[in-house]
Structures are given as structure tokens and as C-alpha cells.
């Protein structure tokens, strides 16, 4: 049940259309800056897999220039009796990340 937040920079002049695209996606909450093009995005998805899919979808958006993860909580619903379980998941994510360094964007 991951909740993540991102800082998003749209391509020049595409702030409005990017915002519109993001708002159509399930599990996305968008907060635009009042004085710049920056958008804040909070994603709330039912599973790690859905989170990965959503992120992929966003990354494929034409209007996206830059997307930086700011916050990630994999399982906010529980006190997490064994935090290492999600830690291990996160480790795998990280390792996958670092291994794929020469490949295509994730």
C-alpha cells in the first residue's frame, strides 16, 4: 500500500497539460505551485506492483521533464511488526535499481 510523493517539473509550457494528465490517473493527488511550474505529486497505490506501474506510466508522459521521489512509505497502514520485511523489499528495489544502471530508465 505505498504512499510516495514526488517533485515534478513539466516541460516548458506544458504545466497545465501535465497536471491534467496526472489528475486523470488513479491514486494521484496533484498540488501545483502558486508561483512556479513545479508540481507536487502524492501517489497512493494498493501494492508495490501498482506503484511501479503507476510510476512507469507517469515517466512515460510526454510533458514530463523531471520527476524526483521525495517520500516513500511502503506500508503506511500497519505498524509493521517486521519492518525488515519491507526493508528487504526495498533492498531488492534498490539492488534492481543499481543493477540496471546501464539499461533503460526504469
Amino acid at each position, binding site marked *: 500500500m505505498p504512499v510516495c510523493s514526488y517533485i515534478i517539473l513539466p516541460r516548458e509550457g506544458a504545466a497545465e497539460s501535465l497536471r491534467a494528465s496526472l489528475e486523470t490517473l488513479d491514486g494521484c493527488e496533484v498540488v501545483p505551485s502558486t508561483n512556479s511550474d513545479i508540481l507536487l505529486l502524492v501517489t497512493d497505490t494498493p501494492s508495490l506492483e501498482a506503484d511501479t506501474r503507476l510510476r512507469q506510466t507517469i*515517466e512515460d508522459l510526454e510533458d*514530463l*521533464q*523531471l*520527476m*524526483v*521521489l*521525495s*517520500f*516513500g*512509505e*511502503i506500508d503506511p497502514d500497519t*505498524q509493521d*511488526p*517486521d*519492518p*525488515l520485511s*519491507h*526493508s*528487504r523489499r*526495498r*533492498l531488492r528495489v*534498490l*539492488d534492481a*535499481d*543499481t543493477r540496471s*544502471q546501464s539499461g533503460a*530508465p*526504469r
Partner: protein
Amino acid sequence: MITVVALSMFWIILILRPLPDEHDDFRSVAMVEAPEADRPIAAEAGAFRDLHDGLLNVAEALPSPHVFVSTRAARASRRAYDGAPPLIPHPLDPLVEQTQDCTPCHTYGGYNPELRTYSPRSPHPEMTNCMQCHVRPIVSNAFVPSDWEMPALPGYGMGGAIQGAPPAIPHPLQMREHCVSCHGGGPAAPDIRTDHPDRFNCRQCHAAIEAPGAVFSRPGPGGSDR
């Protein structure tokens, strides 16, 4: 012992830096070091390290897109409990394995294009025998299953009893005296990243809790009455 010596040398160099010689009239004067030579108190001195290193602007511009940025959860995944030395989460170059020299990437941290991520800064770069405490796991299974329970992480905004008030420091300061290492700039996990890394006197606003949960009560019997 080596570490201890290295630590004190570092601090002596840090605190007793030579006097500037911009005064022509006085350049002939042989300057001596200040009379104090005791170990500085790391928790007090640590936060000001960047000020003395001339590393005055720690906020970095973001590099290219698709950067993996660490998070509080990811940080937790590398520690057995809050305050434990983190594991090394990335493959090591054989040369590094040999020299055990992590300082090129971790003294100041910064963006690492090869790993497409930020190298975190060490809060104690004067300690260079890194693998004394930090190890690289090479298998993911356990020897036998462990009943170890990881205590809950310090909460967000602990002590921030008032909305918008600066949170208290939810962890001990030992080995973590240099706040900006973990809380400032690109290498910092954004969910614990400060938006004001340029203010050095951190404990001006963020109290270090000595007695968690303590409630003040007046000494002696009888309260306000004698």
C-alpha cells in the same frame, strides 16, 4: 585507538586553524594557536563543520531525471535499529574492497552518475576505517531465522508539539553530530531533508531530548505552599 587519534587530530585542525594573514602590518608576527587544546565537544562543534570547511552552500541542483533518491524507509532498511551503522547497500568496486577507502564518495557526498543516485555524506568523515562498522551483505538468507524485532523508527516531527514548530531531535547525537550529512542537500533522504541547510546553528531550534516524556514538577513537598 587509531580512530580516536584521528578524531582528535581532525578536531584540533578544525578548531585551531591558523590565523589569517591578511593584515600586512602584522604578517611578521608569528601567530600562535589559541590556548585551549582540549577535545572539543562533538555534539556542540559538529553542526558547524561546513562553516569552517568553507562548504557553505550544500543545496545542490538536481541532475538528470530518473534519479533514485533515498527515503526514510530505504534508510531504515539498511539498519538493524535506529542508530545502527548502516549496511553498504551497493556493490563495491574491487579496489574499494581492497583499500576500504570510501572517502572519495562519502566525505562530501554528491551525485554519483554511475549509480544514478546520491552518495550520502558521512557524518563522521574523520573516521576512515569504514568497514570496521559498515559491512556489505552478500547473501540475503539468514543462518537461522532471527527473532530480532526492529524498534519503531523515531516518528516524524517528534516533540513538535505545536503545529509548525521545529521538531525535536528524535535520536542521540553521538556519531551524528554533523546534522547536514543526513538532513541537508541532495544526498539526504528527502523526507528528512531540511529546507534550510544554510543555517548552521541547528540546535537553536531543534532541541536534543535528554529526558523523553519527563514532566516538570516543582521540587519539594507542598507545591506552591511552604
